[in-house]
């Protein structure tokens, strides 16, 4: 569909598109994350469905112009329901040759390149490993719709009379690129101008410079004859209501705040900075009015230890980290299992082992959190499926922790943590009330007297008269909790702790099959792969393929009906960003065959990869 829009002389075509994916790529100091973030906001305001994927290096400022220093932000926005940031992009904004080189493989054939040619000199080309300028290569030119734009020099021109130092002027060039994209996709400038005003209000010269750069980019698009058309992506038809764009880390923080508020207890957050989990600490530290205490500990062990100490005292202790930090917390998590205190451990997974790929995503900590402690040390594990789902997963973890008096692990990952999506805002009243009742009656009190249904022991906190008691890491005597080394008691307690966690299966929703309840292929996933798997399944189901989907939130214990569900399909495909960890768990638990589909590149699945794999099995 096309309509003409004549403005300021140049005759332009306005073309309607359903879905567009754009990647902004530049040096890590070029402000690409901010640019992407603003473009995302504009798409959200326009009512598009969207999904984002920030992808940045571990180094804060890698050498300028190098491949290692490229920071990218991908956004997929659409007038229909979408689930992923897009397998490939339609538009690549490349601020330098390195950005072009690292991202060109993800640009669709015939896709648009907006290249900041001011940065395509010999030196920068060499840094990116180009022997000659690809923008001048005939074959390359034939494959893409290339727009060479002097972003740096045009930004400088626009700010010429402001007498800014040139490095300050150059820092506004991302706003020029953003303005150009706003023109190209028919977005209003006003919300971003307002945002600039709020963000840089204290420095009027920054407000003026960034606003001017933004406008200059927009007007450049409008007036130059290079661009013959611009585009519109209309509102998507997703459920009506109030929305905000939310990242997984913010949603996770909100979930913990909401859960403890509903419980009527304080949230104690013990954490040590680690990528990609630190943002949860940052977010929570801004919400002390909820009674949140944030404790930046001296190390990961102190973070979890203080959290467990806080739980012993009647707060809900939560600690949050990534794989390497979780490894350090293992002993204290085991103490939480032994002392049967509520605690939540959030693991924002990243590529590993060891330091691995700190800023890249992976889901290879499942077996670590299941088994990475000494001896028989079971605890519930739940995983978030989307950025917004991090909110509900945090609440579920808190519920289980307090109801069953146990540490609970929440698994998120770098992709969910930093990625974002429009989120239909829940109301406080949608969240179940979960009032906590501490034990107060000294009559017949025994610290390990269990609730007959949940097998949870009482939560008896210091300061309660008559409930003085001792807990600790040494094996407990049944009921009294006294130190006990008896062989039979030990076996009884090991089995009881195991039974308590296994019993949670009765208290969680059954696995839900999306699609036919039986058939040829069942694709079963967990965690942040939900979007890509869902998109693949939807595409195949639309073509009439016999494929269904299950996505697990509860990984320990599994939903009670899972074995039955698995039995209804000829083939079980388990796509994971690891070497098959859920696959192993399904195999040993149910003695069934599974087909693993694995990707370990620090990147999420592409929908196309999944479709191809599923088609092989159909």
């Amino acid at each position: 569909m096309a309509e003409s829009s004549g403005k300021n002389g140049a005759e332009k075509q306005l073309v309607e598109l359903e879905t567009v994916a754009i990647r902004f790529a530049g040096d890590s100091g070029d402000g690409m994350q901010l640019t992407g973030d603003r473009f995302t906001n504009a798409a959200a305001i326009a009512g598009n469905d969207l999904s984002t994927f920030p992808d940045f290096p571990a180094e804060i400022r890698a050498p300028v112009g190098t491949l290692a220093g490229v920071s990218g932000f991908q956004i997929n926005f659409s007038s229909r329901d979408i689930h992923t940031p897009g397998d490939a992009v339609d538009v690549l904004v490349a601020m330098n040759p390195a950005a072009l080189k690292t991202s060109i493989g993800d640009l669709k054939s015939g896709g648009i390149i907006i290249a900041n040619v001011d940065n395509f000199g010999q030196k920068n080309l060499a840094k990116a490993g180009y022997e000659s300028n690809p923008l001048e290569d005939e074959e390359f030119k034939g494959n893409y719709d290339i727009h060479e734009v002097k972003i740096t020099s045009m930004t400088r021109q626009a700010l010429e009379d402001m007498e800014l130092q040139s490095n300050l002027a150059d820092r506004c060039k991302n706003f020029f690129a953003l303005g150009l994209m706003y023109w190209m996709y028919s977005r209003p400038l006003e919300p971003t101008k307002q945002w600039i005003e709020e963000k840089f209000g204290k420095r009027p010269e920054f407000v003026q410079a960034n606003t001017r750069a933004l406008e200059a980019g927009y007007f450049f698009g409008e007036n130059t004859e290079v661009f013959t058309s611009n585009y519109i992506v209309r509102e998507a038809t997703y459920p009506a209501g109030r929305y905000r764009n939310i990242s997984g880390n913010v949603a996770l923080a909100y979930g913990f705040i909401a859960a403890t508020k509903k419980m009527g207890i304080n949230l104690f957050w013990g954490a040590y900075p680690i990528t990609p989990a630190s943002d949860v600490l940052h977010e929570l530290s801004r919400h002390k009015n909820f009674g949140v205490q944030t404790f930046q500990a001296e190390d990961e062990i102190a973070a979890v230890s203080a959290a467990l100490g806080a739980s012993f005292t009647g707060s809900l202790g939560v600690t949050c980290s990534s794989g390497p930090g979780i490894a350090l917390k293992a002993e204290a998590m085991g103490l939480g299992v032994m002392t049967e205190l509520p605690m939540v451990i959030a693991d924002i997974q990243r590529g590993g082992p060891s330091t691995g790929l700190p800023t890249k995503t992976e889901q290879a900590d499942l077996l670590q959190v299941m088994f990475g402690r000494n001896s028989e040390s079971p605890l519930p594990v739940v995983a978030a499926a989307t950025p917004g789902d991090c909110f509900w997963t945090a609440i579920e973890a808190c519920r289980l922790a307090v109801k069953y008096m146990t540490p609970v692990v929440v698994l998120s990952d770098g992709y969910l943590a930093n990625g974002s999506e429009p989120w239909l805002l829940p109301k406080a009243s949608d969240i179940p009330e979960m009032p906590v009742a501490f034990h107060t009656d000294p009559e017949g009190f025994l610290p390990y007297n269990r609730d007959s249904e949940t097998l949870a022991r009482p939560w008896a906190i210091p300061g309660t008269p008559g409930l003085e008691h001792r807990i600790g890491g040494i094996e407990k005597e049944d009921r009294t909790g006294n130190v006990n080394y008896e062989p039979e008691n030990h076996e009884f307690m090991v089995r009881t702790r195991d039974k308590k966690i296994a019993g949670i299966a009765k208290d969680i929703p059954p696995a839900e099959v999306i699609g036919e309840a039986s058939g040829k292929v069942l694709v079963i996933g967990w965690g942040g792969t939900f979007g890509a798997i869902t998109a693949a399944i939807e595409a195949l189901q639309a073509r009439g393929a016999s494929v269904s989907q299950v996505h697990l939130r509860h990984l320990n214990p599994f939903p009670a009906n899972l074995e039955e569900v698995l039995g209804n399909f000829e083939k079980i495909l388990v796509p994971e960003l690891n070497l098959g960890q859920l696959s192993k768990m399904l195999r040993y638990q149910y003695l069934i065959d599974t087909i693993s589909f694995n990707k370990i590149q620090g990147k999420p699945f592409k929908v196309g990869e999944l479709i191809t794999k599923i088609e092989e099995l159909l």
Partner: protein
Amino acid sequence: MSTTTAKNGGGLGLTRKDFQSDQVVRWCPGCGDYAILAQMQKVLPTLEIPREKFVFVSGIGCAARFPYYMDTFGFHTIHGRAPAFATGVKVSNPDLSVWVISGDGDALSIGGNHLIHSMRRNVGVKIVLFNNRVYGLTKGQYSPTSLLGSRTKSTPIGSVDYPLHPLTLALGAECSFVARTTDRDQKHMAAMFEEMANHEGTSLLEVLQNCIVFNDGAWHKFTEKGMKEQNVIYLEDGQPLVYGPEDDRKGVSLEDYKVRIVEADSPDVTVHRVDDEAGGYAHILSRVELEGGPVPLGVLRKVERPPFEGLMVDQVAAAQEKGEGDIDALLNSGDTWEHH
């Protein structure tokens, strides 16, 4: 809570017995830990603090069994991490009287990091460090306070590690209350416990404690009659640093940060003061015995600083004064839009 009448002068009617749990104490016969436990159980009832407000937190080691024997709230945690657990306890409920029981291995080796950070934060926990210069529970390896050349199970031809000096470390970590006592000096130990109980912020008490099995006599010079008189100096705020038997009194001069033993009536004798903000005097005082002087017992330093838990609670209270958290308001904050 017990209703028996006070025997120790406590205002709440509690007695030593109220602080004894029903668990059998399992330290080796003759262990110095018994004396420390007994003193603690004697002092607590006199403090006018309800029994349910006491929490004893420990790590791993012989000393770490201490909480099991106290009829208070207790948490026997993992090796070296007790100060971190205690931080969570104290911050969650600043009203509690939180005690950390630790040893030289637990506090200074595996738990060194948590020890120094709890002290520099000034968390209001009371740390009792049982220093016997040996690993007892693992049966006799040298510890971070063992002397160079110590012959132990793991160093049969002598250790090549230089020892750590707990009080010097505590002062370096900005600890606001630093003191020392011995397991043989009941009255003095009781006085130290009392002072700790009343101090806001971190207090660290080193107890020179005898391990009768693996390092017997390590501190005899400072604890046994006939020797201690020559080798111990009792610190009193505002009093000169003098020590020694009646007929052989001596003084300590720390002028110019040099340790000198002088006549008791010499004008050079330094007058002890606990409120040494700068910490330089306390530092040299913590090293008197290393320079051939007597070992100082008592409070080396006691300064006032707002404790961590108070600052933490104040921040939350200040935030709540501006309006308590509301879930709907939180969810609706930032850029939101209505989709029709």
